[in-house]
């Protein structure tokens, strides 16, 4: 039953995400001469999947190199030292989330 004229406030229980000023990195026009990083999340067969993806890429492009890293624990973010290594050595990085 709506009580005519009755008004009151309830409070929002949620917390908004903090706005992120991250900008997407520029994508290269092609991968010839580039180093591709593969970051496994540590789940079974993740390495196999990433290897299959890079193999397909190599059918089309001549890569300078491939860097393979495995963060080991799928339930935690990638450690900073791995991110730093990928930044230093790679032009692009392929990763995936899944089970």
């Amino acid at each position, binding site marked *: 039953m*709506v009580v005519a004229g009755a008004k009151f406030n309830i*409070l*929002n*229980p949620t917390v908004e995400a903090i706005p992120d000023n991250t900008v997407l990195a520029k994508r290269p026009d092609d991968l010839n001469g580039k180093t591709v990083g593969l970051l496994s999340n540590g789940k079974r067969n993740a390495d196999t999947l990433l290897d299959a993806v890079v193999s397909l890429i190599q059918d089309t492009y001549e890569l300078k190199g491939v860097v393979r890293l495995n963060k080991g624990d799928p*339930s935690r973010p990638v450690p900073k030292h791995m991110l730093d290594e990928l930044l230093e050595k790679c032009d692009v990085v392929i990763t995936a989330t899944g089970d």
Partner: protein
Amino acid sequence: MTLRPEALVSERVEIEGGLSEAVEMCYQMGWTDGLPVVPPTEEKVLQFLDFAGRNPSDVIGVEPVRGRVITAEKVAINAVMAGCLPEYMPVLFAVADAMVKPEYNLHGSSASTGGSAPLLLINGPVVHKLKFATGHNIFGPGPDRRANATVGRAVRLMLINVLENHPGVLDRSTLGHPGKYSFCIAEDEENSPWEPFHVERGFSKEASTVTVFTCSGPWQLGSVWDGTPEAVLTAAADTLLGLNPGQSEVLLIMSREHQGFFKDAGWSKTRVREFLSQKATRTAQEWAAAQKAGPPELGKETEPVPVLQSPEGLVLIAGGGSGGPWDALIPRWGRGANSHSVTMEIDTSRMP
């Protein structure tokens, strides 16, 4: 301290009408766990914060992966919605503080397909002070268990509302389990033949604590035919073998009828752990045949591999009704290794 409404920073949603309109609005806004909530009015939220002696902007914790800030105001809003009493607030502050510890891995455990829920274990004088249930139907509902039901529920509402842990979005549980509605128990220290859990963790008996474990649903098991510790634990070991090997922590909630066998026979917790750990063992070949963790992880085929990484991984808790030969084994998410249980002391200084 008497706070004023201006001190609250959360967005206001205006309700025109009465209680039922407010309940419906909470559904429409996506703020519920599927059950109706108590509308969080300014008056109720201020009452909760005043009792707790906290300013709305006090930071209770920050979830470390996504940086979500949990303020006293947000804890209070979700506590009101869950149906809590103001005196439950110190328990919820301790829970939030525990869950944001990096070793607890709140983000990973709550997002996982594994579908675990935070299990809250209450110890110490606060159990009686706030009337947490320790006996019959310890995991279930009842008119006498407002504390168990609403404290557990408030935790879930905080995950939904503060961390956006929504099914299919950031909660990727394949199945989940009913404990995701509310999963809060208290140890029956009065009748237990053993040292309370929080004392094992290094707290004094007089301290009040809450321990948070990431857990799957309880597996009820029973041993009826032979009233001995060996029989009870042999049945428990057989159930434990349903898990993958390498468990770093598993909970065994033992009810009073079975506790009596151990008390009469003079078994310590150490003896229980060692017996169970030795019983719950298979060879690597047997584990592989049961499709539990592939052979490369287990070493040589005839090597015995226990379910528990070490006997100390068995968390033994006294709880449940006075009659009935039933216990509960509760597996931990990720074999207990990806999330460590955390025990925090509860500030009871402001409780009546």
